[in-house]
């Protein structure tokens, strides 16, 4: 590390690493130099000329965004000359910018608006005609209003650099320059909407949010996206109990500003017309609406009856419910119903990985590691399509730290473009492909290995052995599918393991075995849809389903209890890399209750509430922190909306690995299991329809 450079900015002494830009150095002492085109993490543009500053001994104003710090430099950021330059730059900008702030979606959170207020450039001397071009719709989610565009090229850069898509470019030149989509009149891309968020003005607007409300009219609820396992924070804009938009402009959470289409637009299932808002009970073979008290009483009665005669219960948990709900559910099943027939859909072999890594410390990667480590090996996964945030981290790592990326996959993936080496393998040949990279990987100083569901069982052990043989620090990520797939495993939603990967002494049935069993008397499904692709053998079993929609499983149910979505409750979820984050309640759907409450109310109606404890998320999480191995995470981080990394084990897990049960649904950017079927937005984009 070279010695820091000393300089003065607005009279404040600053020390910054050599090569730091003045605009960044100013931030170190709390001075905000305005800019439109400069954007942290993206390439430099120096096009907007808002960051011009006065530097002593320089003949003219210099752009702070491209000016590296120099020893003894004296910078002034708010002199009358600078303020005047900015004011007139704004005057130039406003010549063709329509003054339609009252109708513009960006009004109230517009960087141009703020800047005009700051420099008093509201009055213009411009009296010629303004340029006008009509607004264009590029996709169901992206609209472009050319006249509002200030051509800062942030969207172009985030699309090509951040997303690796490069769907946006510039056409024409001079004042009639425009941003243009990659397919003439429409976009074919990830439809992530990063371009919309990053737009400092209202040139790019979102199909869901357009003209619906104004930013100050909404409650902004920072919660965790409920789709894939990456655990991105999404800030929901909620008005009148309805989610109107999702974004993460405050760059909080592990994902910073990154969100894919699911996090940004995939919230609309919450007010889907088919959303269940009242419990349903089977009367004369047909499901009919019932009140909560009646439905709960019926469930409690049946459960009590079967429990009394030690009948057979099967419990299937969810990959979307919170840790608290999962923990509470397995506790209820194991201690109240007395059954170990509890399982969920497994999508990655975390168990074998944790077992293989026993005895080592710090071998589990976080999402931050993917951005910081010097090399990344991707095995058998199309990250950009299935794990978009992890892919984003790797791309950012490549751009900012020149990380070397190695890819071993069956098909072409977007990571090929930044890869130091790519190995194409046949199905099942992933491990051989990894071995072929051994010599190259040995030259690296550190490595993160990300592997999909093609590496499971013994293959995981072999992969870890390979990692150990490299002689460098290696961290691992076992990919799983959904928002709390990892949490479901951690909380013991499997027959062979209790919470914290403690072996269960009397393993029960797996999902497949439950459906195959003819003697099953009660099947209780919480937020899962096992009957989508399988039939149930036990014709007479009493089926209780907690669901948001009338899924295939719910249609078979005797009692359906409407559940709240992840956006409508509190609790914690654990992402693919084992980082725990807290959900916040955004809207509420009338009639639906959080699963935790439903389970608690069933326990209450059975008269067994004391056995499972209160159904309050915080209380349950207290219990999890106290009892589940690896979950003694600092509450301060969780409460503040941060992500706490869990270290679930450091000892052997003496259970038989079940690679046969592990299969990823391979959801892409535009599908999200059952949930995705009820998101109009995901279904509306053409890429989603093709997929």
């Amino acid at each position, binding site marked *: 590390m070279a010695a820091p450079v000393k300089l003065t900015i607005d009279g404040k002494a600053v020390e910054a690493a050599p090569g730091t830009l003045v605009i960044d150095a100013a931030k170190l002492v709390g001075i905000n130099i305005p800019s439109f085109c400069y954007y942290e993490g993206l390439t430099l543009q120096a096009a907007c000329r808002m960051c011009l500053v006065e530097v002593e001994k320089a003949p003219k104003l210099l752009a702070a965004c491209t000016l590296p710090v120099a020893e003894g430099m004296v910078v002034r950021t708010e002199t009358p000359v600078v303020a005047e330059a900015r004011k007139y730059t704004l005057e130039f900008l406003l010549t063709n910018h329509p003054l*339609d702030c009252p*109708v513009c979606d960006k009004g109230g959170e517009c960087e141009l608006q703020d800047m005009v207020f700051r420099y008093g450039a509201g009055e213009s001397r411009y009296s010629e005609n303004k340029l006008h071009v*009509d607004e264009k719709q*590029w996709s169901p989610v992206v609209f472009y209003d050319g006249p509002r565009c200030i051509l800062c090229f942030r969207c172009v850069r985030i699309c090509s650099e951040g997303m690796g898509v490069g769907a946006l470019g510039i056409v024409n030149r001079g004042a009639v320059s425009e941003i243009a989509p990659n397919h003439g009149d429409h976009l074919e891309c990830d439809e992530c909407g990063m371009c919309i968020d990053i737009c400092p003005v209202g040139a790019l607007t979102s199909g869901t949010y357009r*003209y*619906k*409300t*104004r930013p*100050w*009219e909404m409650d902004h609820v920072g919660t965790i996206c409920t789709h894939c396992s990456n655990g991105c924070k999404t800030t929901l804009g909620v008005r009148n109990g309805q989610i109107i938009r999702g974004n993460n402009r405050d760059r909080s959470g592990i994902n910073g500003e990154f969100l894919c289409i699911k996090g940004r637009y995939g919230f609309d299932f919450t007010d889907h017309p088919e959303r269940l808002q009242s419990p349903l009970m089977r009367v004369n073979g047909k499901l009919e609406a019932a009140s909560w008290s009646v439905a709960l009483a019926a469930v409690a009665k049946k459960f009590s009856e079967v429990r009394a005669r030690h009948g057979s219960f099967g419990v299937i948990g969810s990959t979307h419910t919170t840790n608290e709900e999962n923990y509470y559910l397995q506790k209820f099943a194991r201690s109240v119903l007395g059954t170990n027939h509890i399982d969920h859909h497994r999508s990655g072999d975390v168990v074998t990985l944790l077992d293989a890594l026993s005895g080592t410390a710090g071998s589990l990667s976080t999402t931050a590691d993917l951005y910081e480590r010097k090399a990344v090996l991707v095995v058998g996964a199309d990250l950009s399509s299935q794990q978009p945030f992890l892919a984003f981290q790797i791309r950012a790592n490549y751009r900012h730290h020149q990380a070397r990326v190695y890819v071993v996959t069956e098909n072409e993936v977007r990571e090929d473009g930044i890869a130091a080496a790519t190995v194409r393998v046949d199905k099942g040949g992933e491990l051989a492909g990894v071995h072929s990279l051994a010599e190259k990987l040995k030259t690296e100083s550190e490595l993160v290995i990300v592997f999909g569901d093609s590496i499971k069982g013994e293959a995981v052990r072999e992969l870890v052995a390979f990692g150990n043989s490299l002689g460098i620090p290696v961290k691992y990520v076992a990919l799983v599918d959904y928002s709390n797939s990892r949490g479901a495993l951690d909380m013991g939603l499997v027959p062979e393991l209790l919470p914290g990967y403690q072996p269960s002494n009397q393993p029960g049935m797996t999902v497949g075995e439950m459906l195959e069993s003819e003697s099953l008397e009660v099947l209780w499904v919480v937020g899962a849809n096992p009957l989508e692709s399988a039939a149930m053998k036990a014709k007479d079993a009493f089926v209780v389903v907690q669901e948001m929609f009338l899924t295939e499983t719910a249609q078979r149910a005797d009692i359906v209890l409407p559940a709240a979505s992840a956006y409508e409750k509190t609790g914690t979820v654990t992402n693919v890399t084992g980082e725990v984050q807290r959900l916040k309640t955004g809207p509420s759907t009338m009639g639906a209750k959080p699963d935790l409450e439903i389970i608690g109310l069933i326990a209450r109606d059975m008269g067994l509430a004391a056995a499972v404890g209160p159904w309050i998320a915080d209380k349950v999480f207290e219990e999890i922190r106290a009892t589940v191995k690896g979950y003694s995470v600092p509450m301060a981080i969780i409460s503040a909306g941060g992500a706490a990394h869990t270290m679930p084990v450091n000892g052997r897990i003496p259970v038989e690995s079940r690679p046969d049960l592990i299969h990823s649904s391979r959801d892409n950017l535009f599908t999200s299991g059952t949930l995705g079927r009820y998101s109009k937005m995901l279904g509306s984009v053409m890429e989603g329809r093709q997929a």
Partner: protein
Amino acid sequence: MPNKIEEILETAAAIAKGMSVTFKEMMSPTVTENYPDEPPKFEERFRGVHVLQRDESGLEKCVACFLCAAACPAQCIYIEAAENTGAVRISGGERYAQAYNIDYSRCIFCGYCVEACPTDAITHGHGFEIASFNTSTLVYRKERLLAPAPPGARPPEIFTEAPSAH
């Protein structure tokens, strides 16, 4: 006795002065209004029940920018916005107020909403007889607040391409 005479004179003078005012006022026009027998007269800028204005072609001036609601100290304005389309055009801008409610049980007639309005859509009318025994009737909906369309107003024909079907 001079005191007595002075007193009489002073009294007479006082009566004369008083009566002069009386007679003068008897001659001048009356100020008191005969409300409710006659309609009251308003100053131009009297702040009464709001009127949502229309433009010359009958389109609503309100573009649902929510600035009135933001300015309202009593928080009595509730708006739901929606987008104008080629087929349904309600206002002159891209957006219009699908719902526009003013809760007159909260409104303090301060006029901040009128000040805030960038399109001169919301104005104070002269309506004031809104007392009610039931507060629920005091929430006025858009239909009740809107000015009538000017006679013969025809909304302009809008030629917009239908959004492409992606």
